[in-house]
């Protein structure tokens, strides 16, 4: 026979359980917009006692002793696993590459008048004008101007590309440039996240000592793992106790609650020095070198190629490395173009049989004295290699009378006529470089014209940007749909919570009524004797 107090106890217990359930609902609603929060659910169970019942119906009644909260579980989904984080990592990688590719393409945006096309066209137009009036000071000066505009533009394109590179990985020499760069920023953020994850690991380890999970800490852990996967492709292994170990290409980063390794970055110059000191072959092409400092004092000197994906992988790949159309290949294509233009025109200008004008006290005549010194293009810094960033026009042409030094005439086999100032055979050779690319000067660009080669650069750059943007967009939508699935399955739904709230509130009210009834019954009993 069950006692009245037992019923009173059951309802008192139910009041408490429902009150707790309401507090979980309240927590869910409170965190409805918290990133990474998973909906928590109160799992109710019947309180059981293990007593013999046999044929005793009273014992059977007595065994019903009310409700308890078995656990509070969080909604999780398999989508939240490592697959999701790999996709996030890819997404960050593609986005970074797409951003840089589109920055590069922006440098060459001919439709907005930014590339080299107009300058090349003007250069040839000036040559054409020169062929009309080879003795005219104005056409000569305007040719020299157009040549120097061309070199200025090449310098500018090169410096813009280098600027993009500097923003991402520094200039390879200066520490302050490196500190300002995106790679340093990413590495610092990554280290911070790793520290945070180690702390969370510690909290989980000290919190989850039994069978129940600390849902909020696990949410935080998952969120951190997601954040970390943005930077690179880490291998994670989640332990029994809820902590997570992290590796990068076999190197332990976090083990349990300790940080085993930290990331750092140095300039290419510093790495070069390191390689020389330690006798390592330096195969690095990047301005920045990411390395690992282990907490046992040892280091892994270069892990640039270990970042297959993630933001850091994206930055490194777009700037150097194995990727075909990274900023380095574009820069070297531009350098090749600059040196080919310089070589081709210098060769024609200074070839045997070429003559320039000389003003002998008012009489204009042809001359070829010192012709070998009158190359059109040279370097700013005096180096032997002409590149896009150092190409410039020979200062001789900017001197008084320097405009006469452009070799416009050409005579084969010493048939020189010093009065034939209207001879434009050398200019015709220069103009023909538009189409005739069979000469050895064009070997370096595959015997195609400057325009075609430059088209190749634009095409490559633009299609690369297109391709990377498409990859990024596709990856964005994969991640977005995964995100959506995760949110659908683990997110808090207001209506669900409100109906839970009503449910628990009703149960609470009902239990309160039962409690009141029992109380009334008790009172009836108490007043029986009066």
């Amino acid at each position, binding site marked *: 026979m069950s006692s009245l107090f037992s019923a009173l106890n059951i309802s008192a217990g139910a009041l408490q359980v429902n009150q707790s359930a309401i507090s979980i609902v309240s927590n869910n609603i409170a965190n409805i917009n918290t990133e990474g929060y998973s909906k928590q659910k109160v799992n109710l169970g019947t309180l059981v006692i293990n007593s013999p019942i046999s044929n005793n119906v009273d014992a059977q009644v007595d065994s019903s002793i009310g409700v308890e909260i078995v656990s509070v579980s969080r909604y999780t989904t398999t989508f939240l696993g490592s697959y999701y984080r790999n996709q996030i990592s890819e997404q960050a990688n593609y986005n970074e590459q797409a951003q840089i590719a589109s920055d590069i393409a922006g440098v060459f945006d001919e439709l907005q008048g930014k590339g080299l096309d107009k300058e090349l066209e003007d250069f040839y137009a000036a040559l054409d004008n020169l062929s009309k009036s080879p003795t005219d000071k104005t056409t000569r000066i305007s040719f020299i101007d157009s040549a120097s505009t061309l070199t200025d533009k090449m310098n500018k394109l090169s410096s813009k590309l280098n600027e993009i590179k500097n923003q991402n990985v520094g200039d390879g020499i200066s520490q302050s440039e490196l500190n300002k760069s995106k790679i340093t920023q990413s590495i610092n953020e990554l280290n911070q996240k790793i520290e945070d994850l180690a702390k969370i690991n510690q909290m989980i380890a000290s919190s989850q000592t039994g069978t129940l999970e600390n849902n909020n800490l696990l949410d935080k852990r998952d969120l951190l793992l997601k954040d970390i996967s943005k930077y690179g492709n880490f291998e994670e292994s989640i332990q029994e106790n809820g902590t997570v170990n992290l590796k990068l290409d076999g190197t332990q980063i976090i083990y349990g609650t300790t940080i085993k390794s930290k990331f750092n970055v140095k300039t290419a110059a510093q790495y070069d020095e390191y390689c020389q000191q330690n006798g390592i072959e330096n195969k690095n092409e990047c301005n920045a070198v990411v390395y690992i400092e282990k907490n046992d004092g040892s280091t892994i000197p270069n892990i640039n190629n270990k970042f297959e994906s993630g933001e850091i992988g994206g930055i490194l790949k777009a700037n150097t490395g194995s990727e075909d159309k990274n900023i380095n290949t574009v820069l070297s294509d531009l350098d090749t173009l600059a040196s080919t233009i310089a070589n081709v025109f210098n060769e024609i200008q200074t070839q045997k049989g070429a003559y320039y004008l000389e003003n002998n006290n008012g009489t204009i005549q042809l001359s070829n004295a010192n012709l070998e010194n009158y190359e059109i293009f040279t370097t700013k810094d005096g180096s032997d290699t002409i590149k896009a960033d150092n190409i410039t026009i020979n200062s001789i042409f900017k001197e008084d009378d320097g405009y006469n030094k452009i070799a416009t*005439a050409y005579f084969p086999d010493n048939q020189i006529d010093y009065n*034939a100032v*209207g001879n434009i055979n050398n200019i015709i050779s220069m103009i023909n470089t538009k189409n005739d690319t069979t000469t050895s000067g064009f070997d370096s660009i595959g015997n195609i014209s400057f325009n075609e080669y430059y088209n190749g650069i634009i095409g490559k750059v633009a299609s690369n940007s297109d391709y990377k943007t498409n990859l990024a967009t596709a990856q964005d939508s994969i991640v977005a749909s995964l995100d959506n699935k995760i949110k659908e399955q683990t997110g808090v739904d207001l209506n669900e919570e409100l109906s839970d709230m009503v449910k628990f509130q009703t149960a609470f009210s009902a239990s309160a009524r039962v409690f009141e009834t029992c109380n009334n019954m008790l009172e009836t009993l108490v007043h029986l004797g009066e």
Partner: protein
Amino acid sequence: MIGRVSSSAINSTLVGHIQNNYLDFAKLTEQLSTGKKINSILDDTLQSVNIINSNRQLGKIDIWSANIGSLTNEIKQSSETIELVMEKGQRAKDLATSAANGTSNKDNLISTLTELDNIIKSVVDMANTSYNGNYIYGGTNTKTQPYSIQYGIDADGNPTDEIIGIKYNGTAIDGDWKRQLEIADGVFETCNVTGMAAFGECDVEPVYQADGVTPVLDADGNPTYTENSNSGIMGDLIDFRNALSDTIKKLEEQENLPENATQAEKDAIGAEIKACYDSINGLLDGFDDSITQMTTVNSKFGTVTNKLEMSTEALSTSKLNLEEYISGIQDLDITEAISQWYTSQTAYQASMQTATSIMSMSLLNYM
């Protein structure tokens, strides 16, 4: 499995849709405000490269058209000059014809000589015509006067005003005399001929003794000359002038014959005068040949001009085609775009409206 929906999933989906619609709307707005479908190479890589190539081709066409214009003008100038020289040549031939028939007296011939000297001077001036600051008949020697008149000397070696030759100073006919402009990829058209080919020359120099100053004199005590070359209308003019002045000299001799001259002497001078007239007569064919030579050169100019006209037409056709092609790729179909713009505007508004009404809906409204 019954799907679960959560408020945050709905919110992010709705926001995503709004953003997509807004992007479409913004993109169309940009296209409409610029009137172009492709504003940056990032908009459409492949077509952008086509546009860039076509623009480059258009730039070339502009240069070639300008070159053709400049070629045509210079050729027109050259052709006009050659026609004027032909007129003068014809006049000289007429003078020669009337001088050769032996009816003119000495005074007539002297005035003919004066007219001939004027003709020579003006022919030389014409052959020295310049265009754009360059002598057109000098080949590539564009800054040197192509023709200069050579004058004779007296017995002491002092210059006289007697014309003895017309010297050509331009590029030789077998030299590199062409002045060219590009009229198509790698195609260069020549705009000039040498004065030598059109007018020839007659280079005459006095003969000096070893000291280079004292002239070598002939039996009559006159300075002697050597003729280095003789060709074309210039040669004819000088030949005519020499024959004419010889004739005048013989006529003078005839006038100055003493009263008592023998019949033999009279006959001798008469024969010499006859020979002079014959030699003038013999020059007439030379004039015809020279005029034909100039006509041939002039008809070459005509051929080139026709060719250039055809090129101009071809260039303007391909220019039009290219412009049409670029416009087809790059220009926006405004009607279509406007209707798309309205549609996307409606979609954008609709997505915002549905979003607000869905997001504001919850059980809370019923509690």
